[in-house]
């Protein structure tokens, strides 16, 4: 699971959950998959990012020094930060771990890089 995907995952589909975001991420095993840096693509993703959530993800992935706690202005002109975002969002691959609903504590396992967001019938 890439952290760009994590940025969009919620547990809101669970009955009674109001926001379900951000999910509490635990990383047991991760990999780094190098990919070509495309500044335009990262800029394209920017407005869709939830900054506090990706900052949280950076802390959990031991990359807190790369990502400022507040979203800086004019990121598009800051190539160094764009490259760090690229690394955080597209290159870190969470292979084993879990996502936890902040409201109910329901755990969604991440196995072989696949987050399992399926819910049982009695949960929806």
């Amino acid at each position, binding site marked *: *699971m*890439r952290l*760009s*995907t994590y*940025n*969009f*995952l*919620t547990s*809101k*589909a669970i009955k009674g959950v109001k*926001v*379900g*975001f951000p999910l509490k991420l635990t990383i047991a095993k991760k990999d780094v*998959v*190098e*990919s*070509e840096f*495309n500044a*335009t*693509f990262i800029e*394209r*993703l920017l407005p*869709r990012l*939830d900054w506090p959530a990706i900052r949280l993800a950076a802390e959990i992935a031991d990359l807190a020094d790369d990502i400022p706690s507040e979203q800086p202005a004019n990121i598009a002109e800051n190539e160094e930060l764009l490259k760090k975002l690229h690394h955080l969002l*597209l*290159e870190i691959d969470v292979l084993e771990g879990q996502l936890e609903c902040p409201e109910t504590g329901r755990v969604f396992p991440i196995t*072989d*890089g*696949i*987050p*399992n*967001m*399926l*819910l049982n019938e009695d949960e*929806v």
Partner: protein
Amino acid sequence: MASIKLKKLEEYLHGVDSFEKPKIKLEQYITPPHIASCVLYNIQTLYGDIEGKYVGDLGCGSGMLSIGSFLLGAGMTTGFEIDGDALNTFQYNVTEMELPGIDCVLCDVLALPKCGKWGNAFDTIVTNPPFGTKNNCGIDMLFVQTGISMASGAVYSFHKSSTRDYIRKKVKDWHVKGNVVAELKYNIDTSYSFHKSKSVDINVDFWRFDVTEKDI
């Protein structure tokens, strides 16, 4: 313009492993590599909807459309699939082909709009939905509806040609412009043992939905 030649794309897609044991209830069959490469190539060359874009694949199965989109230069692709076995094959394919920007989520596609965050997350959504022939009539349009909520640019989908008029009317209600990009013949031959005749040809439309003015 496309970053890869059509012939090369098809060659790569022939290397995508299919479902090990297709599940009838989920109407699983792989998008044929020839069809996948042709339609994806056209999405890029006619509309520029893949290169540098964030592409989502609903009901991605073992990853034919996700992998094809990435090979055509998508910035990132995320596939969504309800069947864990299919996703294991998806991951196997992605690892085997050493492709970096492809991700997947095990989930119920039709529950995605309820999750709140996926709305307009993608530039482009591609989907080869179940056609709704196994007591799940209308599921193909539920996939499209979900896709429309998740895309800011365009949604591409396959449907039986017999449903063309219905789809035209349906998307008009959502302020979405739909047009048939290609008419295809699907040959679903050996996927299921209950297909008694050797091969079954069905007429399929490949649709493009422009969602930039959607009201959904």
